[in-house]
């Protein structure tokens, strides 16, 4: 029996440093712990990381060094504090990893590419393929390919994967063309086959909430109530960082689809509602009445939930114009004075950004 102390060295990570290739098969729990912390906080010193994770200074040193060599973590300029020696702030390297997110809606599909800190590097919307099209999703696959190719240079290496946000709410699915759900089911396979990337699938509203937790307004929150105002109004409860989804969950019809039908009833144009990053024209009093109806539903839900749950924060996420979201949030805060109401921080397409956060959470964080 050889003395195992003197067996061949077995580094924590088996990275082939000479070629710069990332040969990590399984990322260690401690590495994920450090990356999770850096996803939440910028500019931490090694000592901060040690304190927050309970890892020894030597273990933090080894992990930080290997993450830096891999390009996932970047060292900042030395900071001289008022006391003690200067520290080196550590942050995620935005260019260290990228992910593609796809959200599938009843009218359109959104594709985004984000960097490691959640900045959107590519975004496009496209209509759902028509029902009679034989090609299933060739255009979508092509767009994902474009998104990946939009990275500077030959940076396909750091693509962590593709996230897919799929609607499951029955009423939401009913808004789309027949057979939509069935078509969605095949997308994962198609992308994996065509592009040789890993695809992670999640419920769309849950993905949007996950995106808020990772990159958006819920970064520092353990508990919150999440509303997604899309075609319909959806909600999720987040407790201790876990996004809970009830099997009996139903969405409320008071969403943009309701606003659309009211606008159409008055002969007003409604196309702008569905444009990501668009600005609504003057809808007259239809807008205010609809907002009030939304608020009634939201306030009722928040009021009931806060009777049972330790929730002090509400996040409202939507691709509706920021002005509209701010207005709803501030009115809701007036109606529920004990609750803090925040507008979601994911611009353009919250579901697609949330989808893009899936490969990151799967590969780099502790669950």
């Amino acid at each position: 029996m050889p003395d195992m102390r003197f067996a061949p060295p077995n580094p924590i990570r088996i990275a082939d440093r000479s070629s710069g290739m990332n040969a990590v098969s399984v990322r260690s729990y401690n590495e994920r712990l450090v990356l999770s912390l850096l996803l939440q906080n910028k500019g931490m010193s090694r000592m901060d990381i040690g304190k927050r994770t309970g890892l020894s200074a030597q273990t933090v040193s080894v992990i930080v060094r290997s993450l830096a060599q891999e390009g996932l973590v970047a060292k900042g300029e030395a900071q001289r504090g008022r006391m003690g020696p200067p520290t080196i702030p550590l942050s995620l390297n935005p260019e260290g990893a990228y992910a593609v997110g796809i959200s599938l809606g009843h009218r359109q599909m959104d594709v985004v590419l984000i960097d490691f800190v959640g900045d959107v590097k590519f975004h496009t919307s496209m209509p759902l393929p028509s029902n009679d099209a034989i090609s299933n999703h060739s255009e979508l696959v092509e767009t994902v390919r474009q998104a990946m190719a939009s990275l500077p240079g030959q940076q396909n290496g750091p693509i962590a994967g593709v996230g897919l946000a799929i609607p499951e709410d029955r009423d939401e699915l009913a808004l789309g063309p027949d057979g939509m759900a069935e078509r969605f089911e095949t997308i994962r396979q198609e992308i994996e086959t065509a592009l040789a990337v890993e695809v992670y699938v999640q419920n769309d509203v849950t993905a949007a909430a996950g995106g808020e937790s990772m990159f958006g307004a819920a970064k520092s929150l353990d508990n919150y109530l999440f509303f997604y105002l899309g075609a319909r109004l959806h909600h999720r409860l987040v407790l201790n960082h876990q996004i809970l989804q009830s099997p009996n969950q139903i969405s409320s019809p008071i969403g943009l689809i309701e606003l659309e039908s009211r606008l159409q009833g008055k002969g007003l144009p409604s196309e702008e509602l569905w444009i990501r990053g668009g600005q609504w024209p003057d809808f007259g009093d239809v807008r205010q009445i609809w907002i009030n109806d939304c608020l009634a539903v939201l306030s009722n839900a928040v009021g009931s939930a806060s009777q049972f749950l330790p929730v002090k924060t509400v996040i409202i996420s939507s691709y509706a114009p920021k002005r509209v979201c701010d207005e709803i949030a501030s009115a809701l805060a007036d109606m529920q004075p004990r609750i803090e109401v925040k507008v979601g921080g994911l611009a353009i397409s919250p579901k697609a950004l949330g989808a893009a956060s899936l490969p990151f959470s799967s590969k780099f964080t502790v669950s």
Partner: protein
Amino acid sequence: MLKTVLCFGDSNTNGQEPGGTLMDRFGPAERWPGVLRRELGPDWYVLEEGLSGRTTVHNDPIEGDLKNGRAYLRPCLMSHAPIDLVILMLGTNDLKARFGQPASEVAMGIGCLIHDIKELAPGPMGEVPEILVVAPPPMLDDIGEWEGIFSGAQPKSHKLAHDFEVIADSLEVHFFDAGTVISSDPADGFHISRDAHEVLGVRLAQEINVIGWGG
């Protein structure tokens, strides 16, 4: 609280001048442990333990058993405990032709020293101290009359940093590659100049500071 760092190494920790004799040694403030003393300031007590010709674990058949770093390390640690940080910077002498060692075996020797430190636990309250492995800068191709003694060592010396890092990762200790900030001096091809001592001392002080010390 005063903290103690032990600088354990060979002639480049001793401060031997490139191309000089054993008697030619940089001054206390010039050699890197002295620079470290200046940079770290009054909170640190810097101990110099650099011996010319020191190997990691080998009894040198020519220079003598006293050059064996492993044999000396434990009594040395005991003499100076409690120690907060041990810096290990050696390995070049293991590349002498008489030992016939590849770089990976030199790294195993460093690993051996790390195990001994951990086993002895000469840190405060009998804990394991922080350990910082420093890979020496690679040798230059031209080492003049030393060629016979170090025959074949130069290419191996370029591998030390990688193999030391692997062992430092495996045993979870701090690591710094001196070759990223200094080079060996052309006067003899493997000792470091006064300027290099200055740069190394400053950089190691930064490495020590970023470890973070509770107080």
